[in-house]
């Protein structure tokens, strides 16, 4: 994601830079590979005690975010859109992060309310 919304960037980057078949296959393989790593952790490493569950959970979330990046950037083509569009889609995601922070914090208080 480049942050220079100039005409130069437009002329050089956007038109030639798009999803070719080779790139589609590559992204598909990356997504499958990440999913396989998740399975490996869930089916082998955690049950056999190679990785505690409180380490595995953040790893799952990071891997999920990687997958989300590849889907949005390449399959949904957002990486190759104009920077204005990219920001108008990505910046509102801050609201979601805000809700995550507020509600995870809040939920820790619900525990005491329930007892």
């Amino acid at each position, binding site marked *: 994601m480049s942050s220079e919304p100039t*005409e130069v960037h*437009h002329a050089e980057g956007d038109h030639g830079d798009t999803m070719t078949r080779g790139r*589609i296959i590559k992204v598909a393989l990356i997504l499958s590979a990440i999913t396989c790593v998740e399975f490996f952790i869930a089916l082998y490493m955690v049950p056999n005690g190679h990785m505690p569950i409180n380490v595995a959970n953040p790893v*799952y979330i990071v891997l999920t975010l990687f*997958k989300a990046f590849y*889907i949005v950037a390449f*399959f949904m083509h957002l990486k190759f859109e104009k920077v204005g569009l990219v920001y*108008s889609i990505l910046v509102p995601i801050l609201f979601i992060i805000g809700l995550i922070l507020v*509600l995870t914090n809040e939920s820790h208080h619900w525990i005491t309310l*329930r007892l």
Partner: protein
Amino acid sequence: MSATVTQIDELKTTPWSGGRSPFNVEYGKMMMWFFLLSDAFTFSSLLISYGALRFSASTWPIASEVFQSVPGTSIEHGAPLVFVGLMTFILILSSVTMVLAVEAGHRMARKEVVWWMIATVIGGFMFLGCQALEWNHLHSEGFWWSAIPNAETLKEFFDPKNLPALAQQQMTAHQFANLFFTITGFHGFHVFSGVIINIIITLNVLAGTYEKRGSYLMIEKVGLYWHFVDLVWVFVFTFFYLV
């Protein structure tokens, strides 16, 4: 006016100087993006509520115990993640065929677009079929909206070494059931409407609508929706089946 280019004229070439869209994207496609953003808010609210309820619960049904069968076969135990893994790969693959349809559309290759779209629709139906089996299996165990299995079945879903009290098991199982069916149901509804939209667009391609229009941009727009459905599944998969 003189022919010399002043500083002011230079500025007018920036994307925001007016006269053309700074986003350089067709109206319908931009609106699809904003619709998907609002849909992302909806799904996030559901998933964050799930997270908050789960954080505030002292216990929760173990995913590898609840989802350890392969519905539609005789495998009832000991195969956690196998079935949902199949569903995940089906959805990723149908996303790949969708992006291949978009790529074919850029080359105006009508036949290829049709075949890739048909493959995408088949992938969508396969996913929906799997989800129906999964729901049916959970329902046969006793799970449904505000319905949970009897105490005998229920205790299999919790850690036997540290078994919570029955009332706690029942409370979290209720929450689990409601959240699971609501969230996967809302996602499944999106898959279903995506399949319907894909079928309509495929019929349009066959009828030559986009050939006449001179652009297969419509494939890109429905493609965005379809990839979004895949994107949501990635999160649902992690938070219901892995964590």
